[in-house]
Protein backbone atom coordinates (compact mmCIF):
# COMPACT_ATOMS: atom_id res chain seq x y z
CA UNK A 1 0.00 0.00 0.00
CA UNK A 2 1.19 3.48 -0.76
CA UNK A 3 0.80 6.92 0.68
CA UNK A 4 0.22 9.74 -1.74
CA UNK A 5 0.24 13.50 -1.31
CA UNK A 6 -1.67 15.25 -4.05
CA UNK A 7 -1.04 18.98 -4.32
CA UNK A 8 -3.49 20.63 -6.64
CA UNK A 9 -5.27 23.92 -7.23
CA UNK A 10 -8.30 24.83 -5.15
CA UNK A 11 -10.52 24.66 -8.26
CA UNK A 12 -9.41 21.19 -9.21
CA UNK A 13 -9.32 19.80 -5.67
CA UNK A 14 -12.72 18.09 -5.60
CA UNK A 15 -12.28 16.75 -9.15
CA UNK A 16 -8.94 15.22 -8.20
CA UNK A 17 -10.40 13.68 -5.07
CA UNK A 18 -13.18 12.11 -7.12
CA UNK A 19 -10.67 10.79 -9.65
CA UNK A 20 -8.48 9.23 -6.96
CA UNK A 21 -11.31 7.76 -4.90
CA UNK A 22 -13.32 6.38 -7.81
CA UNK A 23 -10.93 3.47 -8.56
CA UNK A 24 -11.14 2.48 -4.90
CA UNK A 25 -14.95 2.25 -5.03
CA UNK A 26 -16.09 -0.89 -3.24
CA UNK A 27 -13.20 -0.74 -0.78
CA UNK A 28 -13.90 0.57 2.68
CA UNK A 29 -12.51 4.06 3.25
CA UNK A 30 -12.05 6.57 6.04
CA UNK A 31 -12.74 10.09 4.85
CA UNK A 32 -11.41 12.97 6.96
CA UNK A 33 -13.29 16.04 5.83
CA UNK A 34 -11.47 19.19 6.93
CA UNK A 35 -12.83 21.85 4.60
CA UNK A 36 -16.31 20.64 3.67
CA UNK A 37 -19.12 19.19 5.71
CA UNK A 38 -19.72 15.46 5.55
CA UNK A 39 -23.04 16.16 3.84
CA UNK A 40 -21.59 18.23 0.98
CA UNK A 41 -18.63 15.86 0.56
CA UNK A 42 -20.99 12.92 0.37
CA UNK A 43 -23.16 14.68 -2.22
CA UNK A 44 -20.15 15.53 -4.40
CA UNK A 45 -18.88 11.97 -4.26
CA UNK A 46 -22.34 10.59 -5.01
CA UNK A 47 -22.56 12.85 -8.07
CA UNK A 48 -19.51 11.08 -9.41
CA UNK A 49 -21.01 7.66 -8.78
CA UNK A 50 -18.92 6.80 -5.76
CA UNK A 51 -20.54 4.39 -3.30
CA UNK A 52 -20.49 6.42 -0.08
CA UNK A 53 -21.95 3.57 1.97
CA UNK A 54 -18.42 2.18 2.13
CA UNK A 55 -17.06 5.38 3.61
CA UNK A 56 -16.60 6.27 7.27
CA UNK A 57 -16.68 10.03 7.67
CA UNK A 58 -14.83 12.15 10.18
CA UNK A 59 -16.36 15.59 9.91
CA UNK A 60 -14.05 18.32 11.20
CA UNK A 61 -16.22 21.19 9.97
CA UNK A 62 -19.50 20.77 11.78
CA UNK A 63 -19.84 19.83 15.40
CA UNK A 64 -23.56 19.14 15.27
CA UNK A 65 -24.30 15.46 15.30
CA UNK A 66 -26.86 14.63 12.63
CA UNK A 67 -26.02 11.04 11.86
CA UNK A 68 -24.86 8.35 14.24
CA UNK A 69 -22.34 6.95 11.75
CA UNK A 70 -20.42 10.22 11.41
CA UNK A 71 -17.76 11.26 13.86
CA UNK A 72 -17.34 14.96 14.59
CA UNK A 73 -13.94 16.15 15.77
CA UNK A 74 -12.62 19.67 16.05
CA UNK A 75 -9.56 20.23 13.77
CA UNK A 76 -7.82 21.79 16.78
CA UNK A 77 -7.79 18.42 18.49
CA UNK A 78 -5.12 16.69 16.44
CA UNK A 79 -4.55 14.08 19.12
CA UNK A 80 -8.22 13.11 19.03
CA UNK A 81 -8.26 13.09 15.24
CA UNK A 82 -5.21 10.87 15.20
CA UNK A 83 -6.79 8.58 17.80
CA UNK A 84 -10.02 8.30 15.81
CA UNK A 85 -8.22 7.50 12.54
CA UNK A 86 -6.12 4.84 14.28
CA UNK A 87 -9.20 3.31 15.86
CA UNK A 88 -11.02 3.19 12.50
CA UNK A 89 -7.97 1.51 10.95
CA UNK A 90 -7.91 -1.01 13.80
CA UNK A 91 -11.62 -1.75 13.72
CA UNK A 92 -12.19 -2.02 9.97
CA UNK A 93 -11.24 -5.45 8.79
CA UNK A 94 -9.51 -6.12 5.48
CA UNK A 95 -8.42 -3.67 2.82
CA UNK A 96 -9.07 0.04 3.47
CA UNK A 97 -7.86 3.49 2.57
CA UNK A 98 -7.67 6.90 4.20
CA UNK A 99 -8.52 10.22 2.55
CA UNK A 100 -7.44 13.51 4.14
CA UNK A 101 -9.24 16.44 2.53
CA UNK A 102 -7.38 18.82 2.85
CA UNK A 103 -4.21 18.86 4.92
CA UNK A 104 -3.52 22.58 4.72
CA UNK A 105 -6.79 23.34 6.56
CA UNK A 106 -5.18 21.98 9.70
CA UNK A 107 -2.77 24.94 9.58
CA UNK A 108 -5.61 27.32 10.40
CA UNK A 109 -6.02 25.66 13.79
CA UNK A 110 -2.55 24.24 14.54
CA UNK A 111 1.04 25.20 14.00
CA UNK A 112 3.12 23.68 11.20
CA UNK A 113 5.17 21.44 13.42
CA UNK A 114 2.13 19.90 15.07
CA UNK A 115 0.56 19.21 11.70
CA UNK A 116 3.83 17.75 10.41
CA UNK A 117 4.00 15.45 13.46
CA UNK A 118 0.38 14.41 12.88
CA UNK A 119 1.08 13.62 9.22
CA UNK A 120 4.17 11.61 10.10
CA UNK A 121 2.23 9.65 12.70
CA UNK A 122 -0.57 8.90 10.24
CA UNK A 123 1.67 7.84 7.38
CA UNK A 124 3.68 5.56 9.68
CA UNK A 125 0.59 4.01 11.23
CA UNK A 126 -1.07 3.51 7.85
CA UNK A 127 2.08 1.92 6.47
CA UNK A 128 2.30 -0.46 9.44
CA UNK A 129 -1.32 -1.51 8.92
CA UNK A 130 -1.17 -1.70 5.15
CA UNK A 131 -3.54 1.17 4.59
CA UNK A 132 -3.44 3.40 1.51
CA UNK A 133 -3.35 7.12 2.22
CA UNK A 134 -4.57 9.84 -0.12
CA UNK A 135 -3.78 13.26 1.35
CA UNK A 136 -4.87 16.33 -0.58
CA UNK A 137 -3.76 19.90 -0.25
CA UNK A 138 -4.46 23.03 -2.28
CA UNK A 139 -1.35 24.30 -4.05
CA UNK A 140 -1.59 27.84 -2.79
CA UNK A 141 -1.82 27.09 0.90
CA UNK A 142 0.77 25.93 3.41
CA UNK A 143 3.76 25.65 1.10
CA UNK A 144 6.13 25.51 4.04
CA UNK A 145 4.15 22.68 5.58
CA UNK A 146 4.16 20.80 2.31
CA UNK A 147 7.94 21.14 2.18
CA UNK A 148 8.14 19.62 5.64
CA UNK A 149 5.83 16.70 5.03
CA UNK A 150 6.36 15.56 1.47
CA UNK A 151 9.13 13.22 2.61
CA UNK A 152 6.66 11.23 4.71
CA UNK A 153 4.75 10.13 1.60
CA UNK A 154 5.74 7.46 -0.87
CA UNK A 155 4.51 9.55 -3.76
CA UNK A 156 3.89 13.28 -4.21
CA UNK A 157 1.83 14.53 -7.14
CA UNK A 158 1.96 18.21 -7.99
CA UNK A 159 -0.65 19.27 -10.49
Amino acid at each position, binding site marked *: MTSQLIITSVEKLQGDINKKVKPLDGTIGIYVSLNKTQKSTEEMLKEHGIDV*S*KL*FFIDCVTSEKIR*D*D*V*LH*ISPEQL*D*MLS*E*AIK*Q*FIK*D*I*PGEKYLVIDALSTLLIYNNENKVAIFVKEMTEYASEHDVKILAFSPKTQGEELLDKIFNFFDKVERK
Partner: protein
Amino acid sequence: MKKSTLRVFFSVILLVASSLILSSICLAETSNLEVDIPSSYHSMQAGQDIWFTIKFLNLANQDRVDVTLKFDMLDSKGNLVATNTKTVAVETQASFVANLDVPTTEKSGEHLIMVTMTSPSGVSSARASFIVTEKDSRLTVYYIAGAIVIILLVIFFIIKSKPLLRKMTLRTKVDKIVKDKLKDQK
Protein backbone atom coordinates in the same frame (compact mmCIF):
# COMPACT_ATOMS: atom_id res chain seq x y z
CA MET B 1 -27.49 -20.19 138.01
CA LYS B 2 -29.59 -17.95 135.87
CA LYS B 3 -27.80 -14.87 137.17
CA SER B 4 -24.42 -16.29 136.35
CA THR B 5 -25.59 -17.28 132.85
CA LEU B 6 -26.91 -13.78 132.24
CA ARG B 7 -23.65 -12.33 133.47
CA VAL B 8 -21.67 -14.48 131.07
CA PHE B 9 -24.04 -13.54 128.24
CA PHE B 10 -23.70 -9.80 128.89
CA SER B 11 -19.95 -10.15 129.31
CA VAL B 12 -19.71 -11.81 125.90
CA ILE B 13 -21.86 -9.09 124.28
CA LEU B 14 -19.75 -6.42 125.94
CA LEU B 15 -16.57 -8.08 124.80
CA VAL B 16 -17.76 -8.38 121.20
CA ALA B 17 -19.01 -4.80 121.14
CA SER B 18 -15.81 -3.45 122.66
CA SER B 19 -13.66 -5.44 120.24
CA LEU B 20 -15.66 -4.05 117.33
CA ILE B 21 -15.31 -0.51 118.60
CA LEU B 22 -11.61 -1.07 119.19
CA SER B 23 -11.02 -2.45 115.70
CA SER B 24 -12.83 0.52 114.18
CA ILE B 25 -10.75 2.91 116.20
CA CYS B 26 -7.60 1.07 115.07
CA LEU B 27 -8.57 1.37 111.45
CA ALA B 28 -9.39 5.04 111.80
CA GLU B 29 -6.23 5.76 113.66
CA THR B 30 -3.83 3.74 111.60
CA SER B 31 -5.25 3.70 108.05
CA ASN B 32 -3.17 5.65 105.62
CA LEU B 33 -4.57 6.54 102.21
CA GLU B 34 -2.21 7.38 99.42
CA VAL B 35 -2.86 8.40 95.79
CA ASP B 36 -0.12 8.01 93.27
CA ILE B 37 -0.20 9.23 89.69
CA PRO B 38 2.51 7.52 87.59
CA SER B 39 4.95 9.94 85.96
CA SER B 40 3.65 9.14 82.48
CA TYR B 41 0.27 10.53 83.55
CA HIS B 42 1.55 13.72 85.15
CA SER B 43 0.83 15.60 81.96
CA MET B 44 -2.39 14.73 80.13
CA GLN B 45 -4.30 16.01 77.14
CA ALA B 46 -8.02 16.69 77.26
CA GLY B 47 -9.92 13.59 76.15
CA GLN B 48 -7.35 11.15 77.55
CA ASP B 49 -7.73 8.71 80.46
CA ILE B 50 -5.73 9.34 83.58
CA TRP B 51 -4.77 6.25 85.60
CA PHE B 52 -3.70 6.33 89.24
CA THR B 53 -3.17 3.98 92.17
CA ILE B 54 -4.76 4.15 95.61
CA LYS B 55 -2.95 2.50 98.51
CA PHE B 56 -4.24 1.76 102.01
CA LEU B 57 -1.28 1.31 104.34
CA ASN B 58 -0.91 0.11 107.93
CA LEU B 59 -4.41 -1.23 108.34
CA ALA B 60 -4.32 -2.77 111.76
CA ASN B 61 -7.48 -4.84 111.60
CA GLN B 62 -7.33 -8.29 110.14
CA ASP B 63 -10.98 -8.45 109.10
CA ARG B 64 -12.25 -7.53 105.69
CA VAL B 65 -13.92 -4.17 105.62
CA ASP B 66 -15.93 -2.79 102.72
CA VAL B 67 -14.90 0.76 101.92
CA THR B 68 -16.35 3.19 99.39
CA LEU B 69 -13.92 5.13 97.29
CA LYS B 70 -14.93 8.32 95.56
CA PHE B 71 -12.62 9.70 92.88
CA ASP B 72 -13.01 13.36 91.99
CA MET B 73 -11.16 15.34 89.40
CA LEU B 74 -10.99 19.04 90.19
CA ASP B 75 -9.73 21.86 88.03
CA SER B 76 -7.44 24.64 89.24
CA LYS B 77 -10.45 26.61 90.52
CA GLY B 78 -11.71 23.63 92.50
CA ASN B 79 -14.60 22.84 90.13
CA LEU B 80 -15.55 19.19 89.81
CA VAL B 81 -14.88 18.05 86.25
CA ALA B 82 -15.16 14.25 86.60
CA THR B 83 -16.16 11.80 89.30
CA ASN B 84 -16.55 8.09 89.95
CA THR B 85 -17.37 5.84 92.91
CA LYS B 86 -16.25 2.31 93.70
CA THR B 87 -16.74 -0.06 96.67
CA VAL B 88 -13.86 -2.37 97.52
CA ALA B 89 -13.01 -4.89 100.23
CA VAL B 90 -9.96 -3.97 102.33
CA GLU B 91 -7.85 -6.02 104.73
CA THR B 92 -4.50 -5.07 106.23
CA GLN B 93 -3.08 -3.49 103.14
CA ALA B 94 -4.51 -2.98 99.71
CA SER B 95 -3.79 -1.20 96.49
CA PHE B 96 -6.17 -0.42 93.66
CA VAL B 97 -5.86 1.03 90.22
CA ALA B 98 -8.50 3.46 89.00
CA ASN B 99 -8.99 5.85 86.15
CA LEU B 100 -10.94 8.94 85.18
CA ASP B 101 -11.57 10.52 81.78
CA VAL B 102 -10.28 14.03 81.30
CA PRO B 103 -13.21 15.70 79.49
CA THR B 104 -12.45 16.62 75.87
CA THR B 105 -13.46 20.21 76.52
CA GLU B 106 -11.26 20.56 79.58
CA LYS B 107 -9.00 23.59 79.64
CA SER B 108 -5.29 23.31 80.32
CA GLY B 109 -3.90 23.83 83.81
CA GLU B 110 -3.18 22.09 87.07
CA HIS B 111 -5.82 19.56 88.17
CA LEU B 112 -6.34 17.41 91.22
CA ILE B 113 -7.35 13.82 91.75
CA MET B 114 -9.01 13.63 95.12
CA VAL B 115 -9.83 10.22 96.57
CA THR B 116 -12.24 10.03 99.47
CA MET B 117 -12.51 6.76 101.34
CA THR B 118 -15.60 6.10 103.43
CA SER B 119 -15.32 3.13 105.79
CA PRO B 120 -17.11 2.07 108.97
CA SER B 121 -14.38 3.88 110.85
CA GLY B 122 -14.91 7.20 109.14
CA VAL B 123 -13.81 9.26 106.18
CA SER B 124 -10.31 9.94 104.98
CA SER B 125 -8.97 11.47 101.78
CA ALA B 126 -5.83 11.95 99.76
CA ARG B 127 -5.00 13.91 96.67
CA ALA B 128 -2.46 14.16 93.88
CA SER B 129 -2.05 16.71 91.14
CA PHE B 130 -1.46 16.50 87.42
CA ILE B 131 -1.40 18.90 84.50
CA VAL B 132 -3.89 19.06 81.62
CA THR B 133 -2.20 20.32 78.47
CA GLU B 134 -3.74 21.54 75.24
CA LYS B 135 -4.38 18.99 72.53
CA ASP B 136 -1.38 18.33 70.30
CA SER B 137 -1.92 20.79 67.48
CA ARG B 138 0.82 19.11 65.43
CA LEU B 139 -1.46 16.14 64.80
CA THR B 140 -4.14 18.44 63.42
CA VAL B 141 -1.55 20.05 61.15
CA TYR B 142 -0.49 16.60 59.90
CA TYR B 143 -4.12 15.66 59.23
CA ILE B 144 -4.73 18.88 57.30
CA ALA B 145 -1.49 18.46 55.34
CA GLY B 146 -2.43 14.85 54.55
CA ALA B 147 -5.89 15.88 53.40
CA ILE B 148 -4.41 18.61 51.16
CA VAL B 149 -1.96 16.12 49.62
CA ILE B 150 -4.80 13.66 48.95
CA ILE B 151 -6.99 16.39 47.40
CA LEU B 152 -4.08 17.53 45.19
CA LEU B 153 -3.43 13.95 44.10
CA VAL B 154 -7.11 13.48 43.22
CA ILE B 155 -7.10 16.75 41.20
CA PHE B 156 -3.86 15.72 39.47
CA PHE B 157 -5.33 12.31 38.66
CA ILE B 158 -8.55 13.85 37.28
CA ILE B 159 -6.60 16.31 35.11
CA LYS B 160 -4.26 13.60 33.87
CA SER B 161 -6.99 11.07 33.22
CA LYS B 162 -9.33 13.50 31.40
CA PRO B 163 -7.64 13.18 27.97
CA LEU B 164 -7.42 9.44 28.49
CA LEU B 165 -11.14 9.25 29.29
CA ARG B 166 -11.92 11.36 26.21
CA LYS B 167 -9.84 9.05 24.05
CA MET B 168 -11.52 6.00 25.52
CA THR B 169 -14.95 7.51 24.81
CA LEU B 170 -13.83 8.29 21.27
CA ARG B 171 -12.59 4.73 20.73
CA THR B 172 -15.91 3.36 21.95
CA LYS B 173 -17.76 5.69 19.55
CA VAL B 174 -15.61 4.56 16.62
CA ASP B 175 -16.09 0.91 17.60
CA LYS B 176 -19.85 1.42 17.57
CA ILE B 177 -19.87 3.27 14.23
CA VAL B 178 -17.78 0.58 12.53
CA LYS B 179 -19.74 -2.27 14.09
CA ASP B 180 -23.14 -0.80 13.15
CA LYS B 181 -22.14 0.12 9.61
CA LEU B 182 -20.54 -3.23 8.84
CA LYS B 183 -23.58 -4.97 10.33
CA ASP B 184 -25.91 -2.94 8.07
CA GLN B 185 -23.84 -3.80 5.00
CA LYS B 186 -24.09 -7.50 5.72
